[in-house]
């Protein structure tokens, strides 16, 4: 399940945010602290996650402490879907 989530996230980030379709993103590659995803795109990513997975990520959670790579974000999504 997490793999599916990660594939969807990777595709969204590479095409919509980085505008480099097909770009591979490592599952533990830093997304936020590295500056790969800026603060504006981060809100877009949250909106995408909420839309696609029906999981709420609060405005105060959009930071590198809550999730900083695909692994952590996928785990967060899955844990909230189970609730």
């Amino acid at each position, binding site marked *: 399940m997490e793999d599916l989530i990660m594939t969807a996230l990777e595709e969204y980030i590479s095409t919509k945010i*980085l*505008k*480099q379709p097909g770009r591979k993103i490592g599952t533990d590659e830093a997304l*936020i*602290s*590295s*500056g790969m995803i*800026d*603060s*504006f795109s*981060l*809100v*877009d990513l*949250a*909106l995408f996650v909420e839309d696609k997975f029906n999981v709420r990520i*609060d*405005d*105060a959670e*959009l*930071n*590198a402490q809550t999730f900083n790579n695909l692994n952590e974000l996928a785990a967060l999504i899955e844990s909230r879907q189970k609730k």
Partner: protein
Amino acid sequence: MTILQIALLVILAIIVGQIPRGRQLGMLAISTFAIFWLQPNEPFVTLLFWLPVGTLAITLLCWALTTPLESRKWGENWSAVAILVSVTLLMDLNRVFKFNQIYTSRTPNLELALAALFGLALITILIISWQNGRHFFQIVALAAILLIFVIIKTPGLIHIVSEYLVNLRGADPADKTTPLTWLGYSYIAFRLLHTIRDKQSGRLPPLTIAEYFNYAIFFPSFTAGPIDRVERFVKELNAPLPLANDDWLDAGTRLFVGMFKKFVVADLLAFISLSNVLVTQVKSTGWMWVFLYAYAFQIYFDFSGYTDIAIGMGRLMGIRLPENFNAPYLKPNLTQFWNSWHISLTQWFRAYYFNPLTRAIRSAKNPLPVWVIIFITQISTFVLIGLWHGVTAGFAIWGLWHGIGLFVQNRWSEFIRPRIPTWAQTQGSQKVLGALGVFLTFNYVALGWLFFNLANPAIAWLAMKKLFGIL
């Protein structure tokens, strides 16, 4: 804080960190004492007692507004109230004890202090019992905290208020020269705003008085941050991290490095760092750059040194405060600079201003073009971050400088990302481009400090012209 004050607080932190039971109450007592003790001692001698009381009062009212009735465990809370009241009265009674080496404020007589505490208790009880008005009062509290913030941070306004207060008390004419400072208010206010906003969005856990106060006025971080998040802080408050040998070493190193950065490096740099006098007198472009760079490093070492001290002190009591800096001057672009400079403040603004605003505009029925949204949100966020430091033209321009910088960087990377040529993707050229980025970012940030540090935009502009040899 002076070295002596820090040394005493470190000793208190070590002691309280070792007591197995009642640690929270011990920390609360020290923090309460510290807000009276550290409040600058001049020139409003007669008011100095009331400002810390004001801090305690606002914190108590915010606690009453954010804690649901059923989780106000009075069994636990009475001991915290007893500590708050007794420390306040002890500070007041210094008029009798006269431990003037420690606390020199002219305190009001006991009847007045008791009457104030009684009045505060009444208001708190009113708020607690008036459940239906909670939502309304939360909004009033948000507005009041911000209003006080604006008043004490606006030179023109605080001047009027200071003068009024001085006349009211019929104090020394000397009192009229310096405006009032309310130590720690900027940080405490933003912690309280965070708890109220989280209460409104249903994310705030129920908190005891000891937990809430320890979070808001925690003595290592109340004068200069970091601004932690309450749920994180309280978790460690209730289950303090153990102090093994390595942790003592870590905390000690952190304190030592912090003191060295602040009292040696930053204080030495201060001799050659940018000032209004130097800017008007200097003729050589080279020296102007020296002054500018010296200031850039002075403010970094001063502020990050302070943070190291706060983090080290917190660690002695089993609490790991969040990092505020992460090698900001070594970052290849402005976005990353702002991910590593005064991190806890920028995260606060992201959580409670930038993200909700971006989300609202982004989800609107007729969405604006992306570049317009980024322009509005980025610039307004950074102007507000500028104004947080003080409501002056200089701070606003400093914020604008960074907002524009981030906007331009965003548009540039948006443009260049799909067009990055293959030659720029080799490891060697990545390194060169990275170094170029660090150089540009550092200099952009350094030039921004002109508006931050100098008395007004006119002097900043004069300095800018001298830096580029136009004068």
